[in-house]
């Protein structure tokens, strides 16, 4: 912990601009977005929040890049950019770096705010989607211009928007009024069959485009195996109703993780049919985001509400907190 604190303070005092993260190496790079710490007060002198990153071997040591104290809700890396093109979804708008975090630009204006999530299109280096409380927005020119892309959505409150990593042109989103899918790059949206509101997360199977999982506020965890037409609530082993995050193991997708409000972390090894809480070592129980390291899928990261990041190196059997302390971590992006 002392090392972490020293590292952050030293970087902070030195005003170090983001050091840039080499694109390739023996380890993945873990990016997290820290919305706030327990000491955060709007407009005040605040502890450093925003985007932090590390290599797993750095353990509790995190580096910082980009602006501080901007309510950083999301972080993403454009696939295929060699980790040169980074994005931050924040209260100030959508930030973009094209040099691996050395310099940044806010690409949106006053009409786009409180950006909750960002998803670059893996099939198009110029196309990015963002979800906001006011709808979905899309750029097709590398963030030079943005257009609203909410046609067909009955709720403008978007918790999460995602460009499918396996189907070109497919985009899906979790909203206050359910789940929606687009097959034309968000030009039009169609409602999926999930009838509950307050959907907080919607994820797709890494290989089977017809399999989706959704986490909701107060309604539990649902899955669909037919592209979103029919959904079933998964209850075996589940004692909670609010799920903010679900993650598939990209190398063995029958292994899944789910977490939310005071849930700890659930794991399924049968494709979401049954679940088991895997909480040994967790010092907090509420989590906002989950990610599995694609380079070593035994390594799973869970971003806590007020508890920083917890990591397991054995698929959830044991967990350990690696900081940053007292942080609200809203998203994790792991780049192999």
């Amino acid at each position, binding site marked *: 912990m002392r090392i972490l604190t020293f590292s952050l303070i030293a970087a902070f005092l030195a005003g170090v601009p983001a050091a840039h993260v080499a694109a390739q190496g023996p380890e993945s790079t873990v990016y997290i977005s820290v919305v706030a710490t327990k000491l955060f007060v709007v407009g005040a002198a605040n502890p450093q929040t925003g985007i932090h990153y590390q290599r797993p071997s750095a353990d509790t040591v995190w580096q910082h890049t980009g602006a501080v104290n901007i309510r950083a809700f999301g972080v993403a890396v454009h696939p295929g950019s060699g980790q040169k093109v980074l994005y931050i979804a924040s209260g100030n708008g959508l930030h973009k770096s094209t040099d691996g975090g050395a*310099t940044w630009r806010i690409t949106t204006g006053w009409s786009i705010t409180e950006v909750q999530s960002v998803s670059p299109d893996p099939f198009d280096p110029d196309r990015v989607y963002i979800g906001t409380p006011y709808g979905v927005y899309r750029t097709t020119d590398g963030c030079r211009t943005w257009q609203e892309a909410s046609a067909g959505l009955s709720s403008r409150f978007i918790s999460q928007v995602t460009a499918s990593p396996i189907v070109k042109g497919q985009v899906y989103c979790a909203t*206050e009024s359910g789940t929606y899918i687009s097959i034309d790059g968000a030009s039009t949206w169609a409602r999926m069959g999930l009838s509950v509101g307050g959907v907080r997360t919607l994820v797709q199977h890494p290989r089977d485009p017809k399999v989706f999982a959704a986490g909701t506020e107060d309604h539990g965890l649902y899955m669909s195996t037919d592209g979103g037409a029919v959904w079933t609530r998964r209850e075996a082993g589940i004692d909670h109703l609010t799920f903010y995050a679900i993650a598939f193991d990209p190398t063995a997708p029958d292994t899944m993780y789910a977490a939310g409000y005071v849930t700890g972390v659930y794991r399924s090894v049968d494709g979401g049919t049954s679940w088991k809480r895997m909480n040994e070592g967790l010092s907090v129980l509420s989590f906002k985001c989950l990610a599995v390291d694609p380079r070593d899928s035994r390594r799973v990261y869970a971003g806590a509400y007020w508890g920083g990041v917890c990591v397991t190196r054995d698929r959830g059997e044991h967990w350990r907190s690696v900081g940053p302390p007292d942080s609200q971590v809203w998203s994790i992006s792991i780049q192999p």
Partner: protein
Amino acid sequence: MKHLMCSVGCCVLLCVLAPLAGRADGFEQRRDRVLQVAAAEQEYNLMTVLAKLKTRTDLDRAYVVLDSMAHDRAMGGMFFAYSMMGVYLHAHDVLPDTLRVKIREAFRVRTMYRGDTENHWVMYYTGLYLAAQTWPHDPGTAWFNGKSSDENLVEAAGWLNQWMHTTVTIGQGEFDSPTYMTVFLCPMLLLQEFAQDPAMKTKAGMMVDLLLADFAAEHLNGNFGGAHSRDYPDDIVNPLSAPSTMWAWFYFGQPAMEQWNEARYRPRHRGSWETVFAAASSYRIPEIIRHIATNRAQPYVHREKKRVRNVIRFSAVKNPPVYKYTFMSPRYVIGSIQGGILQPIQQHTWDVTFSSTRTHNTLFSLHPFASGKELAMFFPEEQKFLAGEVDRYHLVYTNPGKWNSSSPYEQTFQHRNDLIVLYDIADGVRHPHADGFFPKTLDERVVDPTGWIFARWDSVYVGVFPLSGAAWIEDSICWRWRSTSRRTGWVVEVRSVEEAGTFEAFQRSLRSRTPDAETFMRTGSVAFTTAGGDRMTFAVNGSRNLNGQAVTFKKYPLYDGPWMQAKVGEGVIRLTDGIRTRVLDFTTGEVRER
């Protein structure tokens, strides 16, 4: 001057011994006084630093503090952005070149968080606008957000123009806040002073006029009367402790006191030092607005339409309307908004405020509602955590004894100096009770066998008829009326000695007009006949009826009253005091006087 530099303690002593500067003298004396006192202040912030720079007081220390603030990378955001530019522009002539460079650099390396409220954005975009025009033609690499000077100027001007348009056509969101009025006034004062674009400069000056006139119409001897979108508990129970009192003193000359020196009115924010920006400004309040603020010869009704801040979920309407109704008299104000969730966290739905020099000169009721879902209507974070997060900032959000709250279970119906407030609290609500604030500084508080509670404050009488049983709880500053009945409410009438005669006569009159509480409990509807003979009926389903006619809000004006008139959507605000007329025409960007 030397003694002023000693300490605030010296100031207090001096002001006890000496006549108050603001009492006999005019605006220029108050302006000088603000600068002098702030310049002598040992609490360092950008406003007191500006006062030192403007008065050439303790310059070396001011430079050190400013240097430190320019260096402090942890400081940032909207408060910093606009106030640092205010200091830079007002004190440009005395700033060393090295400091100018450091302040410029702050806008490259410092994060300027835009915030998530209306006042945050006004500050952010004012700061950005002034910075962008001050350092034109710089590339994106010279700015914290990666945008060029031109891009920043266009974006800031775009939002500021949009905000002004919204405010003058459908109303302000964070309206009539005794605290946050400061952070609308100061940015607009800076823009009207320093905007190089003549149109922006003129419109910013018109916004200052409008903000002050809006306050003036509901001002009574230093008090910001009636309902407020956002107010802090300490100021709600003690209205003269709010920063608005400092603005009243500064611009209206009332009350006759210096707020920072009088313990009874001690502002929460210590000195309300933001008035330094006003003191440094060339803006002078038009006499018509000062007259509106201080002419209380006749009682009047003043109505305003405002809007709810952006509702981002759980509602089909982004900015629902707020209907504000205020009855002003020489001795008291009674004012209200219609009830419901119109602002999260800090709503003050209604009150009676007495013109007085005594503390805690107010009386009101509320339902202390708290819910993560309410907060999630306005903030994007997860609703299960929002209440706790808000409690960290505002300390009292989930407190069952809090004195500020919106509630979906509270509704009001006001007609002149009579008001009915009803509570119909659902099962399962976190705090299922209603509270009433009766200050201990009342001269009399009598519980009558008829059920009426009669209160007297000097020559002002208040009758409160509770529609359910309740308990009295003694707090340090008040008697707290608390009803645990899910269905309850008050019928309130306020009259002065000039209107009602003696306190006994007031009581006799109300006893003869006692509402039927049993019917209310059974039907949810209550009827009351005012002293003027008007028949008000009001039900928990929201139906309001006056003399047999349904009262709706369909044609509610943006402003309506003897001093201010404007239609919704028009963008033209007409001020009049019977002698003069001042028209703020935002459609043309012109001020017309007659």
